[in-house]
């Protein structure tokens, strides 16, 4: 029983860590977008406001991908272990 609970907790932690790998992508993407925006503003300084608005919205959209990973990780850390252990205990009780 302890071994099964340990495996469940370990797998949840491992899954949360793996989910957070998706958090790397938005950072790289946002960095590239901002670098290109700096280049564009350097060429045409009068377009600063329009470029900033578009970039803000683009970065917010890009960040949603990371947010999905974050939510999955949080659910795996805080909610999944308790529920899975409960299911395991109930199953063990039913089987006797």
């Amino acid at each position, binding site marked *: 029983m302890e071994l099964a609970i340990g495996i469940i907790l370990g797998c949840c932690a491992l899954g949360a860590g793996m989910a957070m790998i998706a958090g790397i992508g938005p950072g790289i993407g946002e960095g590239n977008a901002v670098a290109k925006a700096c280049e564009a503003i350097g060429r045409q300084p009068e377009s600063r406001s329009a470029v900033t608005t578009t970039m803000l919205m683009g970065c917010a959209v890009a960040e949603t991908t990371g947010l999905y990973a974050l939510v999955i990780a*949080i659910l795996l850390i805080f909610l999944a272990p308790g529920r899975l252990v409960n299911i395991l205990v109930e199953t063990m009780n039913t089987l006797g």
Partner: protein
Amino acid sequence: MKKLDETVKKETLYIAAWTVILSAVMESVFLVTGLWKPDVLFGNLLAVFTAVLNFLLMGVTIQKAVGRDEKDAANMMRFSQSARMFMQLALTALGVFLFNPAAAVIPLFFPRIAITFRPLFDKKKSGTEE
């Protein structure tokens, strides 16, 4: 401290307004389904605060990065994204742990929904200007 850029201020207000409106809709859904409890409201408030603070910090970073050279700007944005992700992780974990998990997580996606609606309002504005 540098003053907040007018564009960043305007966009943050737009996102904040939409997040509050969508949160009100979510609260009413909880009320109608009979699942409403005070922890739903507290979780929602914390999540709205997190979502708007994240957007504001992103705007401030972009405002600061725009004046720098390309490499510096990219590194600054990457560091900011990691820091904001940790901030969101901490605040959302607090919300999930102390309050209603659904109410503490769902409002984080409201800025994305607000951005989806944005072209509709831009079209309307440009239509009235013409």
